[in-house]
């Protein structure tokens, strides 16, 4: 365990240099022993897994019921033909953003606070995108027709429209899932080799040997690994920005009040990073407490990530305000009416949940005390998750239900099937994450070892970094 009595009392870092150290971690052996100790299953873990599977079971029941009865059992009410499924799709794609942001963009910027949280965030990304990917399939009502979206030569005379943002989305999400999974797996190879070398069970050792591709920690392997990791980070950086931009085009390309605006790509990307970091907190803060990892994910790490959340919250808040400003300044009466309706009309409660959770509460992070208070950060992360789901609700439902033609105006009320699938998505996500944390290292062993001063015979020669 930690050798420092109060790991939370570390000096605040200079975020500009991102120089965050782990003074309570002193040797490579300590890193392996403490992080691999997490892999042992506990009763609390089994209970959490059962809860996640129960939620997933509820979602699966709802989906089977919908397939049997038809899409009418969901709450769709023309012209509101996008509802909880598309809202939840965008929500999970957004959650999936923080992982690659932390592992790729912060890697290129040499931000030290990423080191101990990026593996969990990367895994979160993969499982979030896996979850998001289910919703367009659920939404089309006939999931067995999904392959029609994939462009390959066929004789059905139905060919995807390459000018449609929905087809762009298929390419963007497929690429993002592939690259996020590749990035996660490549980073895991040296750590799986650590597991392989400590494993005593011959069958598990064989499996781990297969998964580690016979990795031997040679200088040659590390050299090519480091270069490949750098290029993967360089590819992933624009990919992070492009994926949610493409998702935002699903809306921005539609001539619907509240959607047809050029601000959507940056607004969606900032919102995705904001919600992704919140989900990282939702996962990491209990983990650092339950698994005794407070000397790895220190208050300095949380403080640095809180500044990131505050910044993205300000960007998102600015985007909300600009939307209102453009509606007023543009002079288009449909837009003005729509935005008035958004905050004072039928859906006022959803808009005010969004504004409170995403704009007002995060302002508390201007306080240094609150930025360094894990309990507050965890509570705030729940509010942000709720607020960001409602942000997508506010974008989707009020626009469709309050279109340019008043005779079309209608309402929308999710049914139990919508709620079951929403709960099921959380069950699906957490089931995979819980299985991951007990099978593979949730922190990058090799990278954490890199920031620890190595053992030296002579104190002053060949110092560390």
């Amino acid at each position, binding site marked *: 365990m930690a050798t420092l009595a109060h790991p939370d009392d570390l000096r605040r870092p200079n975020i500009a240099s991102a120089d965050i150290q782990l003074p309570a971690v002193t040797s490579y052996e300590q890193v*392996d022993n403490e992080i691999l100790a997490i892999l042992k299953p506990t009763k609390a873990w089994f209970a959490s897994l059962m809860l996640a599977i129960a939620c997933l079971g509820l979602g699966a029941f709802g989906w089977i019921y919908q397939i049997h009865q038809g899409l009418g059992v969901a709450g769709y009410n023309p012209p509101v033909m996008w509802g909880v499924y598309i809202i939840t799709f965008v929500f999970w794609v957004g959650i999936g953003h923080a992982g690659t942001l932390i592992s790729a963009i912060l890697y290129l910027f040499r931000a030290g606070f990423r080191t101990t949280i990026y593996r969990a965030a990367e895994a979160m990304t993969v499982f979030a995108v896996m979850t998001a990917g289910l919703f367009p399939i659920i939404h089309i009502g006939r999931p067995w027709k999904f392959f029609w979206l994939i462009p390959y030569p066929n004789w059905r005379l139905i060919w995807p429209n390459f000018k449609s943002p929905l087809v762009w989305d298929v390419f963007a999400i497929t690429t993002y899932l592939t690259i996020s999974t590749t990035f996660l797996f490549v980073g895991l190879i040296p750590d799986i080799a650590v597991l392989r070398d400590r494993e005593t069970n011959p069958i598990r050792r064989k499996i781990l040997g297969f998964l580690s591709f016979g990795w031997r920690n040679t*200088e040659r392997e590390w050299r*090519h690994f480091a270069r490949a990791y750098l290029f993967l980070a360089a590819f992933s950086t624009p*990919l992070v920005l492009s994926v949610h931009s493409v998702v935002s085009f699903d809306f921005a390309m539609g001539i619907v009040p509240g959607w047809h605006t050029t601000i959507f790509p940056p607004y969606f990307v900032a919102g995705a990073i904001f919600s992704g970091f919140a989900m990282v907190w939702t996962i990491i803060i209990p983990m650092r407490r339950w698994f005794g990892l407070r000397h790895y994910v220190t208050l300095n790490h949380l403080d640095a990530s809180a500044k990131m959340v505050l910044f993205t919250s300000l960007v998102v808040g600015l985007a909300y305000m600009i939307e209102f400003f453009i509606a007023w300044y543009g002079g288009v009466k449909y837009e003005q009416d729509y935005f008035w309706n958004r905050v004072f009309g039928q859906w006022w409660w959803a808009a005010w949940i969004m504004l409170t959770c995403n704009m007002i509460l995060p302002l508390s992070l201007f306080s240094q005390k609150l930025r360094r208070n894990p309990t507050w950060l965890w509570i705030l992360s729940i509010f942000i998750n709720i607020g960001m789901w409602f942000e997508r609700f506010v974008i989707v439902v009020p626009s469709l239900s309050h279109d340019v033609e008043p005779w079309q105006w209608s309402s929308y009320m999710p049914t139990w099937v919508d709620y079951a699938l929403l709960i099921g998505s959380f069950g699906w996500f957490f089931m995979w994450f819980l299985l991951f944390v007990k099978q593979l290292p949730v922190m990058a062993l090799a990278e954490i070892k890199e920031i620890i001063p190595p053992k030296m015979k002579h104190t002053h020669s060949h110092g560390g970094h």
Partner: protein
Amino acid sequence: MRGMMGVFSELDSTVEAIEELKQRKVGDLTVFSPTPRHELEHAVHPPMSGVRKFTLIGALSGVCFGFWIAIWGSNYWPLVVGGKAISTWLPYVVFGFEVMVMVGALSTVFGMFYLAGIPRLTMTVGYDPRFSHGSYGIFCECAPEKLVEAESILRRHGAVEVRGEK
């Protein structure tokens, strides 16, 4: 493949041993470390990684394929809308970009595997499980008459264990 393997617990001892083994041209060296270290890279002084060539070729192939699939698909199965071109460059940038990233990244990983010599079915000689945990290692592949010299260099620089491997 025959040689002498030394296990070290200190980084600077490993570096010194590498430098002397290289200076005396005892044999070909394979260096092991639980984490990448610049000190070892400087001591070994290897050529630059060739992964970048795979990345470039993959990315260029990807961007070409991405544009081609969209343009060819649109022209072969045209969706005619009055006043609009059947193929347009601007929306197809999305396909060019996404496929460039996908193929470029996958070919980067392929390049890493190819150049690093993985997947490897057996661990071969000269490996010790301690190298993934906390120890450094040097495997010096050399002629039988040089084994004694390699062993003495490894021991002199503080190897905690030295053993012959074949």
